[in-house]
């Protein structure tokens, strides 16, 4: 009897862990989107994200700041220089001693190397540049490092993901790990993989970064959102990106 009960518990545990990210079985938000939304993402001529990509492309070769250098001035041709770059972010920066997001890296290049004023968070220019760089990795699998100095930050991100927050007292994991694929009102709960950012969201009628998405989620559970430069956001973005490893980059994605 006791043995049977132990077996039952073991089976339940195995099932429980099976649901949580078994490596494969990862579903991009694309897979849960409607046929129309997918068609919009699939056709570059219909994907509104390309309006921002076009802006990013123009900015890439526009000289900026005291150095009067453009991104292209150092990096050259984007297709070659930026290929696969977005798959590795957020990545550890040894000089800073902490991980940095792709937006953070672009900002760092701008302020430190170009000597230009920082681009405002969530500005069209910032979204455009990130989308343009991200596009060069489209179709490549996410490959965020998990070992080495980045480990403690990844663990911090995981803890945040599993921490209950806000007046609703909900953690990210409760919905996006355990209830993914089920419904929240009319929408399917996605697995929360950030493989298409910055993306065009129909609800926003505009482009947004992962930061905007997380701010939405946090206010959704009635928690105070982290400020844009909070280390918690980088840790959480890092964990989410690592969690999506293996899924292909879809930047600029279209989501409902």
């Amino acid at each position, binding site marked *: 009897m006791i043995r049977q009960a132990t077996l039952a518990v073991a089976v339940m545990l195995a099932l429980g862990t099976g649901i949580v990210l078994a490596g494969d079985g990862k579903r991009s938000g694309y897979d849960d989107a409607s046929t129309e939304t997918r068609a919009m993402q699939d*056709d570059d001529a219909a994907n*509104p994200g390309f309006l921002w990509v076009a802006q990013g492309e123009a900015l890439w070769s526009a000289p900026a700041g005291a150095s009067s250098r453009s991104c292209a001035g150092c990096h050259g041709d984007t297709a070659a220089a930026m290929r696969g770059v977005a798959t590795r972010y957020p990545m550890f920066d040894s000089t800073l001693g902490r991980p940095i997001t792709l937006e953070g890296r672009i900002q760092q290049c701008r302020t430190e190397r170009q000597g230009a004023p920082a681009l405002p968070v969530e500005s069209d220019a910032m979204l455009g540049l990130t989308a343009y760089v991200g596009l060069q990795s489209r179709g490549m699998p996410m490959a965020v490092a998990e070992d080495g100095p980045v480990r403690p930050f990844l663990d911090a991100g995981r803890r945040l993901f599993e921490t209950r927050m806000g007046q609703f007292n909900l953690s990210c994991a409760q919905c996006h790990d355990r209830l993914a694929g089920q419904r929240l009102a009319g929408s399917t709960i996605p697995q929360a993989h950030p493989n298409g950012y910055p993306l065009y969201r129909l609800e926003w*009628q505009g482009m947004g970064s992962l930061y905007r998405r997380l701010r939405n989620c946090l206010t959704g559970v009635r928690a105070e959102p982290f400020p844009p430069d909070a280390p918690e956001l980088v840790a959480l973005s890092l964990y989410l990106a690592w969690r999506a490893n293996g899924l292909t980059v879809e930047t600029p994605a279209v989501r409902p």
Partner: protein
Amino acid sequence: MVRVLINAPKQVRVREPFEVKLLINHPMESGQRRDTFGQAIPREIIHTLVCSMDGEDVFQADLFPAISANPFLAFWAVAARSGALMVRFTDDQGTTQTDSIAISVA
């Protein structure tokens, strides 16, 4: 100046229909919404759009407030000779913008 993406084949055959896809970066503010202070946000939409091929109108549209931001328009056209595919639109502020791409007809 708002950003406009015109997608059409660079080369088409004489009198063979080809598809033109337009994406325009525009807020298309309906005029029905209020801001956080309760003030009405004035309407600001593109209301007229004309597309011409080598000076000849091939497509014309009146747009209304129910059209979402960053409108996407697609239509089919035929061309008799090479020239510029030109898009011209006017918004509520009275600004008219023109964008074009070259299409060669073989």
